[in-house]
C-alpha cells in the first residue's frame, strides 16, 4: 500500500534548481515509479544506488585481519554497490534512513566514497531519530512531488538497525552540516543537510 506524507523540508531541496542546468541526484534507496515520474519533469541525471539490499554493511574483522583490511573490504563493497559515474558531482543526495542501518565506522567509509562526488552547493536529505530506542520503521519512501513523500510498507526488515540522532549524523557526515530539521509525529527527525568543506 502506498500513501503520501507531507514534508516541510522537501521544498527547500528544489527551490534553488536552475532549470537551465541538469539536476544531478543520487538516490540511495530503491528506484520507485513515483520518484522517476517526479524527476522526469526536470532535466536531470538520476542515479539509483539502492544500499538496502547490500545490508549489512559492516567492517568485517577477525583475529587475523587488521582494521584497515576490514575498511578496505567495505570500501570495495560500497564502490561496487554505489557504482557512481566518475564525472558526476551531485546536487542532491537522498539517504532516506539507510544511515540508521549502518555503524559509525561504516558511515565514515561511505562518506569517503561520496565526497569526491559533491560540490559546495550539494544538499542532502536524511532521516534521523529523536530516540535511539525507536523500533525499526516498517516503511520506505519515494518522492511524489516537491512537497510530498510516498510511504510504502517494507516487505522485509533490513538488518543492523542502529539509529542515529541528528547530532550524531552531523558528526558522522563530515561533508554535510545540518541546515534544518523537523521532528515528525513518529519521533523520527527529517533532516536537510548542506555541504560543508572539511
Amino acid at each position, binding site marked *: 500500500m502506498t500513501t503520501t506524507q507531507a514534508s516541510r523540508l522537501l521544498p527547500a531541496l528544489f527551490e534553488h534548481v536552475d532549470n537551465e542546468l*541538469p539536476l544531478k541526484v543520487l538516490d540511495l534507496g530503491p*528506484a*520507485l*515509479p513515483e520518484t*522517476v*515520474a517526479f*524527476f*522526469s*519533469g*526536470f*532535466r*536531470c*541525471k*538520476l*542515479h*539509483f*544506488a*539502492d544500499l538496502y539490499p547490500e545490508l549489512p554493511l559492516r567492517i568485517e574483522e577477525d583475529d587475523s585481519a587488521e582494521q584497515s583490511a576490514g575498511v578496505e573490504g567495505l570500501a570495495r563493497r560500497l564502490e561496487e554497490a554505489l*557504482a557512481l*559515474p566518475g564525472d*558526476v558531482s551531485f546536487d542532491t543526495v537522498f539517504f532516506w534512513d539507510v544511515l540508521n542501518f549502518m555503524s559509525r565506522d561504516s558511515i565514515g567509509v561511505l562518506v569517503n566514497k561520496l565526497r569526491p562526488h559533491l560540490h559546495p552547493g550539494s544538499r542532502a536529505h536524511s532521516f534521523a531519530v529523536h530516540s535511539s530506542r525507536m523500533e525499526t520503521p516498517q516503511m520506505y519512501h519515494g518522492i511524489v512531488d516537491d512537497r510530498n513523500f510516498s510511504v510504502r510498507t517494507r516487505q522485509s526488515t533490513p538488518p543492523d538497525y542502529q539509529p542515529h540522532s541528528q547530532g550524531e549524523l552531523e558528526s558522522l557526515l563530515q561533508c554535510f552540516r545540518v541546515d534544518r530539521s523537523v521532528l515528525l509525529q513518529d519521533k523520527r527527525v527529517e533532516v536537510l543537510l548542506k555541504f560543508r568543506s572539511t
Partner: protein
Amino acid sequence: MIGETIKIEGEITGAEDLVIRGSVKGTVDLTSHEVTVDETGKVEADIKGKVVVINGEVTGDIRGGEKVVISKSGNVRGNIIAPRVTLEDGAVFKGSIDMDPGASASTSKKPTPAAQPESATSNTPNLEVKSG
C-alpha cells in the same frame, strides 16, 4: 522476434521493430524502431531504440529516442538515456537515468530515415545480425 530458445552473440541492427524472448549478448541498434525485451528475454547488451520496453532482464545501457519503459517484471542494471522514462511498480532498476523532457521535441524534428519499400518490410526479415 528472437524466440525463447534462441541465443545470439553479436551486433543486431535493422529497420523494424524487434521483440526479444531469448538471450542476446552484444549490441542492439534499432534507433528508429521499437525494441521489446519480453519476460523471458535476457539481454547483456547496450540497446538503442526509438521506444524501448523492458519486461525481462537487461544488463547494459539503454538509449531511447522517445521513451524507455521498465514494466513491473523488468529488471535493469545499467544506464538509461531518454527524454522520458517510465518505471512501473515492481520494476527493479539500478544505475543512472539521464532525462531531458525538452529533448523529445528536438528528437521529433530530426529527419526520419527514408521509408523502406513495401516488399522489404512485409516479407523479408530486415534485421542484421553480425556475430561477435
